[in-house]
């Protein structure tokens, strides 16, 4: 029952200071060969793990998919369509960098059947964009939205970030106002997390990254919940907001602990109970495929215990939480037996709420999600 597909394009024209995803500076990279080999990987994957159902969500992410030329990107999308059986009502998303959106590319996306775009705006403050090393300007976001709509793609999501270095509450309010004024249906808003092997990590270690404190970050989050709700975006996952009916079906695959294919360097997949990670470095990824092998770096067969843990700590990210009866149906045991006392304790701490058949995070729990999720790790 693998109904989702993720495809990774690991190239960027500019590297953001916070990004620790698998990505490479575009210049002089063997992009065409990479696309060929992704095609190989898709063929092999389908051979090894035939789909018994059509794919109903596709997400092409990066890196920067739009850093490819129109022809290159078109080729990749054609390969996807050729290799996978695709459902007629597929949600087909491509990540778009406002700096590399152009008319021709957008029209091609539409023609290829792409029906949803995720636009990486992050902030509408010129200085902050520069500080995080994005290659676009605030006005590029609106231009990208217009281009998308003109090309025929009207289901649009915008990515935002808060808790950026030196970001003030006023700047955040302005950015939220700007994003709400756009004709879009979905907003993802992530708080900055400084990861190793990034420019920000270097700065942090040297004491030169003036991050807002926890208190300010919490206030930015709380303000956002209020503001987006007023503007008709309903909060359906810790970091995600949508107009009714426009929730990201692809991301719900992860939160519902369902399976997915993953194609490309550094991509992750979850097929027939096994989680796999592909080689991240291009030479390793490409060499494996050239040797006629699937490019797996590691594989892990998820145990029953882990499945139940993941069901909880992924599922509780959703605002409506998890269904007790569905859990019992899936695992044959009730949540209360598998995690004795956990839900009771978390309810006492006012981090969880139980209502009818569902358990979900409280308002306080939303801000302290990790404190809750941790409790659903059973240990040895």
């Amino acid at each position: 029952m693998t109904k989702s597909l993720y495809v990774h394009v690991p190239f960027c024209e500019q590297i953001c200071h916070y990004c620790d995803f698998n990505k490479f500076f575009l210049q002089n990279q063997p992009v065409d060969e990479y696309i060929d080999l992704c095609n190989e990987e898709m063929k092999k994957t389908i051979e090894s793990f035939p789909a018994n159902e059509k794919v109903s969500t596709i997400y092409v992410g990066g890196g920067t998919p739009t850093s490819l030329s129109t022809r290159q990107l078109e080729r990749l999308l054609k390969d996807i369509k050729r290799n996978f059986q695709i459902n007629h009502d597929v949600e087909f998303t491509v990540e778009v960098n406002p700096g590399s959106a152009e008319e021709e590319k957008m029209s091609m996306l539409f023609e290829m059947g792409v029906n949803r775009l995720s636009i990486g705006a992050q902030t509408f403050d010129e200085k902050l964009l520069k500080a995080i090393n994005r290659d676009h300007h605030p006005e590029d976001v609106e231009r990208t939205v217009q281009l998308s709509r003109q090309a025929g793609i009207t289901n649009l999501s915008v990515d935002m970030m808060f808790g950026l270095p030196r970001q003030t509450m006023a700047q955040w309010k302005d950015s939220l106002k700007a994003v709400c004024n756009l004709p879009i249906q979905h907003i993802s808003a992530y708080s900055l997390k400084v990861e190793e092997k990034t420019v920000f990590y270097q700065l942090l270690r040297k004491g030169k990254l003036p991050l807002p404190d926890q208190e300010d970050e919490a206030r930015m989050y709380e303000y956002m919940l209020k503001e987006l709700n007023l503007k008709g975006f309903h909060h359906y996952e810790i970091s995600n907001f949508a107009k009714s009916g426009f929730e990201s079906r692809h991301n719900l695959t992860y939160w519902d602990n369902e399976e997915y294919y993953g194609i490309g360097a550094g991509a992750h997949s979850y097929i027939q109970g096994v989680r796999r990670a592909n080689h991240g470095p291009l030479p390793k990824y490409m060499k494996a495929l050239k040797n006629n092998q699937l490019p797996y770096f590691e594989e892990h067969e998820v145990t029953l215990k882990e499945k139940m843990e993941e069901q909880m700590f992924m599922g509780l990210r959703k605002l409506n939480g998890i269904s007790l009866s569905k859990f019992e149906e899936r695992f044959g045991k009730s949540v209360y037996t598998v995690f004795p006392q956990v839900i009771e304790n978390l309810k006492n701490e006012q981090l969880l709420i139980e209502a009818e058949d569902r358990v979900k995070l409280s308002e306080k729990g939303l801000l302290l999600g990790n404190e809750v999720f941790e409790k659903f790790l059973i240990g040895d």
Partner: protein
Amino acid sequence: MKPEERITRRDKIRNFSIIAHIDHGKSTLADRILEKTSALSQREMKDQMLDAMDLERERGITIKLNAVQLTYKANDGEEYIFHLIDTPGHVDFAYEVSRSLAACEGALLIVDAAQGIEAQTLANVYLALDNDLEILPVINKIDLPSAEPDRVKQEVEDVIGLPMDDCLLASAKNGIGIEEILESVVKNVPAPAGDPEAPLKAMIFDSLFDPYRGVIVYIRVMEGTVKPGEKVKMMATEKEFEVQEVGVFTPKPVAQKELTVGDVGFMIASIKNVADSRVGDTVTHANKPTSEALPGYRKLNPMVFCGLYPVDTNDYNDLREALEKLELNDAALQFEAETSQALGFGFRCGFLGLLHMEIIQERIEREFNIDLITTAPSVIYEVKKTDGEIVRIDNPSDMPDAQSIEYVQEPYVKAEVMVPNDYVGPVMELCQKKRGDYIDMKYFDENRVNIIYELPLSEIVYDFFDTLKSTTKGYASFDYELIDYKESRLVKMDILLNGERIDALSVVVHRDTAYERGKVIVEKLKKLIPRQQFEVPVQASIGQKIISRSTIKAMRKNVLAKCYGGDISRKRKLLEKQKEGKKRMKNVGNVEVPQEAFMSVLSMDESK
């Protein structure tokens, strides 16, 4: 053996130790001597044979003493019996050093050809002089590019006053000068005196617990002879045992028919507890005892105390067992059960010094796999109460209220710090900061100074040595001995978390520095204790009076609001790490406190 044979044998015996500062090459020289006297086959020869335990090997310090019997064919054609007795190199074990030296007639004094005399060299030389040993100076590492044997010779003459005309030059590492050393031992170390037919007098200089044989007692026979089957008595404890086996180490244990005057070896006598074979005690025959014990015995008293608590309360019984096992082998380790409101059930443990304490902690964590919380080390305070009662306090939280105290005394040490001239300023500054009283300063030459201070023991039990090392770029060497109790204006300072007094965090501080210390501790705890789901006030108080306060703000946001795509394992790892981190914390007064917080209260340095 016939009486004449015993005398002949006695005259061929040479008993000696090697004394040196750490790193001056003692163990390497011991290895070379073992090789030259063919005590071991090449295959058996592990580097630094005498350091038995892994931990010793890692730290490069000898903790347990060893005694090896070697045969050496000298240039005069005669065969000699050597007993090489190893000594621990650290000041915590000074008494044990003095006893193993008492088992010898001579000592090789090793001085590094580049570094010259260090504080411990001096301390050990004086111990050897006290025991009236023939001291043979050896300048080691002469093949180093930085070696200055002439300068070091002059230094030994000037500082110790030993004549250096026939001083030996060696490089143990490269086998230079070893034979000369062995010849010098034959020629210069006196053979043992003592009557083999007199009543038995054997000195215990170490003991070791063996799970199969019971306690293995290391003895040096001073007078008389001891054989299996005889009944012996320990003169200090008055306990009697029947000897099952006597023998020598070659270094493998080899049973012998008897041990007689001059012999250094082991005795096994169904002894269950090392406390029954105390270092320095005299072994004699039960039915024909000697009238007088050997001089110099004293019971070892712990000087430094701390609480040891299992992080996981389920480990309490395992911790008790671990301590019991260690105690079998370590007569100086003391412990008794104690209860802390904050930490639950644990033990108050007494140690000879800081190194001893660290070694025990490390062995418990490593060999017995128990995570420990260690409270800040303390010394024994003597408190005269207003009602005239005198109490000895080894746990700061037991300190009586200020109103009921007439005065408090604390132990002082005489500390000698040897440094190059350039560091005199910083060292004196450090000693002043640690409430030291300046005593004296001696110049060895234009560059090296010996600074003498009297310091409260409590001030050096924590980070004195580390700070000394860092302020002198590692050039300082340091030695101390306990001298006396002195009156000090001390008060107990309590720490409150979330309004609750945490007994395990109480410290005894000097009144004049209490405010400053309180501030530092409170700020440090604020940094060390992670945000909780509620606001946590941190306070320092003396009696009812709060002298410093701060607040750990409530955790406001801890949620992964970042998209990792389909990388679920990454989310999982992050949560696991968070959970694992909490497991190593202790919940006190509803606050999750990390292990290191309990030790942190003693450090003065704000940056740490």
